[in-house]
């Protein structure tokens, strides 16, 4: 039940983000595709917008000449079991929109929100509780990615504005493929 609370609490803010991403992904089917022959990418990121690492899916929304627009959603977790030793994973979901400039060698600019849902001790009740927060993650970096299917490599500086209050300098390295 606690796990499901993640989706019920703060639902309005989170729903709007999910809606935005889903609409963005839907938009891609009608978006103008110029020179890009692939539409998707999957990659693993070490450190980066989810903290210590994540698995990510990208949908290429729009592409023209040397500019591309991408939406991304990832998944990560720190722990599968809470401090009472029951299965109750921490959930970290980075969502972002990125713009790529270039061709094969791209400069990447992006901004996103990372939803973190972490199990902690509630001071009031002295019981375990799931706390959900949003953090803003801008990013700038380099990406190697061809217009056909193939390997994707990216290196980013992605500072985390943790809980939208505190800046943490951060970055990540990713490796995956496009299809």
């Amino acid at each position, binding site marked *: 039940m606690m796990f499901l609370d993640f989706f019920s609490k703060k639902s309005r803010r989170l729903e709007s983000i999910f809606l935005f991403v889903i609409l963005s992904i839907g938009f891609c089917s009608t978006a103008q595709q110029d020179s890009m022959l692939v539409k998707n990418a999957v990659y693993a990121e070490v450190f980066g917008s989810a903290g*210590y690492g994540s698995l990510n899916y990208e949908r290429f929304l729009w592409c023209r000449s040397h500019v591309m627009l991408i939406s991304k959603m990832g998944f990560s977790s720190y722990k599968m079991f809470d*401090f009472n*030793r029951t299965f109750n994973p921490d959930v970290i979901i980075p969502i972002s929109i990125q713009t790529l400039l270039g061709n094969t060698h791209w400069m990447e600019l992006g901004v996103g929100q990372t939803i973190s849902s972490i199990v*902690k*001790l509630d001071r009031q009740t*002295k019981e375990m509780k799931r706390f959900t927060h949003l953090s803003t993650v801008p990013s700038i970096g380099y990406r190697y990615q061809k217009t056909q299917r193939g390997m994707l490599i990216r290196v980013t500086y992605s500072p*985390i504005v943790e809980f939208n209050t505190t800046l*943490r300098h951060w970055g990540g390295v990713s490796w995956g493929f496009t299809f």
Partner: protein
Amino acid sequence: MKYLYLFICILFLTTCKKEKYSIQNLNGNSITVMGHGGMGFESLYPLNSAEGILNCLNLGADGSEMDIQMTKDSVMVLFHDQDLSETTNLKGNIHSLNWSEIKDAYYTISPYQGFTISTLDDLLASVKNVHDYSFSFDCKLYKREDQELFEETFIRTLQKVIEKYNLENNVYIESQSQEFINRYKSYYPDMRLFIYTENFAKGLDFAKSKSLYGIFISTKYVTKEEIKLAHDNNLRVAIWGITSEKGNIESIKKNPDIIQTDKLRHLLKELDR
């Protein structure tokens, strides 16, 4: 041929058998296993976080060590460093801030986790069957101008929390300050006091002269023979500074009464807990 297989199997089983220990100490020939600040240095839980300590207890430890400091308005909190900025998003000393100014501070060691500083009272209130566990309070008394008055308030406040939960027999008090230990002993002579030392001989002399409960020392500064000497003087020995599995095994062989480890899972397994 059949006997050869049997011999090989027996040989394999005996070589794989876990090392057994013949522990001899003042703790009923058993070692009290404690986590260092909960789950230790290498955990995703910050040292001294309530979540880390609860995880440690739920893993099967006998208890946990924790660092204790007092706020300006006399609230006992679990925190190690002198300045909050070393591990949290705030700045300042615990003793110069009120609890209301500290309660929203969160540990910054890992992104997104946001574990907050806990009060000792909150932690003890959240431990189910609290009397089943032992707690070692490392009293952090960073120097102040009004040290004497501060220490007196510290002792009274800490003791109030201990008595609130009837934990007099479950708590060990550690400090590097001989003055503090003397003061504590004069107010509460029955409490289990440990002198925290880096020099075994000096620690032994002080503990003997004050009839303390024991000596608290890093495993690198004490030998098996020295621990035996402490036991001969009716003093318990608690050791810490164990950051590897090898360190756990070497520490067990020294026959201490308490081990505070950063490798809790391994130590519990090694001692068949």
